């Protein structure tokens, strides 16, 4: 029974990590109507920036973490300036296709620059797990979960309550209408990508803390994708619930069902849940149900 509860708690915390990565998807979508397929690549670039500032440049953690976040923001800004600013006014389809191109472009670049070698990642959060009675809870995931919840509350307040957040929401509604109302579409998309890159870097720190870093870690982007769709692409607060549900389902499947069937069903369970939910609620749990006009 203790193990069961422990699995549930660990699963929920992993789910919160997925939520944090998925928040990158949602923030970019909420402010630009672009679905960023290259989110996992942003995570891995964030990971390499953190690795570079700590292991390579030898800075202390207190200095390197803020520096990494700034650098990651710059990378996000650069991507937006090079690729996406040029596409404002083109169809959303073009913008999404560019992010598909970015997915393989960034994957290739990371591989060319850093190579396939396995690298140690700095220990950012204490390695020692938290003992609660007989249960043990990984410290990085626990702190990460708290960060995720704080970020979700903060960002959903920003997008739903502040003036600049609502402006960005208007951009997600319609680029042309927003810009004719005097809202800077360019600025909004730039902020979105900076935020997306920073969130991905925080995700990388939590995910990789004390583990090893290779370019394959970007697969977390596809692990987080079902969470974003499950919650609905517009809802930041909903990500928490979606992440916890999917995390627990995955953890229970991996620990109790996989040994029985001898496979890795756990890795596709998020997708199965996502498909099932989308068939019942086509815009996810908390996505906007838009009224379409011709």
């Amino acid at each position, binding site marked *: 029974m203790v193990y069961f509860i422990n699995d549930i708690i660990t699963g929920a915390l992993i789910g919160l990590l997925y939520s944090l990565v998925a928040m990158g998807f949602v923030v970019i979508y909420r402010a630009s109507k672009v679905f960023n397929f290259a989110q996992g690549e942003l995570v891995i670039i964030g990971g390499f920036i953190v690795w570079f500032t700590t292991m390579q440049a030898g800075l202390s953690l207190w200095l390197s973490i803020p520096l990494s976040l700034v650098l990651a923001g710059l990378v996000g800004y650069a991507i937006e300036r090079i690729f996406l600013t*040029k596409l404002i006014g*083109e169809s959303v389809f073009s*913008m*999404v296709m560019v992010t598909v191109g*970015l997915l393989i472009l960034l994957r290739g670049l990371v*591989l060319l620059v850093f*190579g396939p*070698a396995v690298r140690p990642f700095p220990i950012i959060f204490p390695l020692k797990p938290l003992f609660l009675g007989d249960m043990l809870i990984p410290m990085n995931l626990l702190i990460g979960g708290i960060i995720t919840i704080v970020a979700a509350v903060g960002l959903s307040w920003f997008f739903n309550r502040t003036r600049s957040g609502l402006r960005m929401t208007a951009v997600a509604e319609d680029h042309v209408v927003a810009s004719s109302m005097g809202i800077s579409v360019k600025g909004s998309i730039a902020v979105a990508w900076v935020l997306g890159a920073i969130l991905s870097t925080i995700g990388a720190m939590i995910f990789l803390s004390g583990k090893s870093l290779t370019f394959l870690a970007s697969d977390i982007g596809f692990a987080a994708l079902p969470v974003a769709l499950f919650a609905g692409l517009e809802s930041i607060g909903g990500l928490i619930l979606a992440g916890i549900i999917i995390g627990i389902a995955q953890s229970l499947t991996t620990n109790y069902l996989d040994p029985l069937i001898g496979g890795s069903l756990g890795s596709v369970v998020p997708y199965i849940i996502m498909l099932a939910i989308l*068939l019942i609620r086509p815009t996810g749990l908390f996505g906007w149900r838009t009224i379409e006009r011709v």
Partner: protein
Amino acid sequence: MDPSGVFPTSYRSDRRLIRTRWQFLALVVFMALLLLAPYLVSSRIIAILNMMMISAVIAVGLQICTGYAGQINLGQAAFMGVGAYTASILASKTGLTFLLTIPLAGLSAALFGFLFGLTAARIKGFYLALTTIAAQFLFHFAVLNLPSTWLGGSNGITVPPAELFGQRFVSESSQFYLNFAVTAIMVAGAFGIVRSRFGRAFVAVRDDDVAAGIMGINVAATKANAFLIGAFYAGVGGALWAYLIRFVGVDQFTLFHSIFFVAMIIVGGMGSIVGALIGVFIIRIIQEIIATVGPNIADSVSFLGGDIVFAGMNVVLGGVIALFMILEPKGLMHRWNILKSSYRIWPFPY
């Protein structure tokens, strides 16, 4: 575009494919050259042509699904994989002739694609596009986790060569004729589909699905049909692939391969069958160059090792997709059409 004042006077002449005598001549010469290719060029080039024709079948399917019906499809390699696995299992376990396995491979892939297209009845827009990524993951999961006696697991399946009247298709040039025949049928079929009732429904749904629905088109069924046809093409291409490589493994059908197919239709031009063929030609040549040059560079930059081909392929093709979307989002075919129509109506602007 014809010069002003020149109109088709009947429905037949409006929808016909070959409009001038020169076009007919060009088509005949092109087909004749392709048919004679095994006698004209080296077997290395024939091998490349084989790959191109198989990719052409798959890219044309993707063109119908994405370019004509507007449904982003990032699972084309998975659909291809379903076809390849179906063909190889049928060929190796039941010994069916390729005349049956290739269509059956197409049908099984079409069924798999249709399942994802069916969700279109409920799911719309990006959500629908993203479910095709789920197809990719479910396909990998199924192959790797079902009992290995069924699908070969991570070991893959060896495929016996295609055989007709005691003639085995093993040499590059005999496989060339097999691929040529199937590709010609499939491409001709694609031209037929896109100018039929279904093709026009696809274009209407792509341009505005709400408006299409108001005009009486069954939008969900049209989207499901688009996935069905696209996946059928992928399945046939997959079967050809299985007979060409004579081995299928799950690593041949990843998300990256799906994106390579997307790159082909973006370069060629969305919404044009000829565009898809041009895209296949260009992307395959780029891939061929990287695969040849890559290992040479790898010797000087040793820390990358064998990954340089994969990395270089991704950088170049990712860059190509992004560049085309920024500079020429309608693809090379659009540029060619502009050139052609300005030549036809010269010296008048329109």
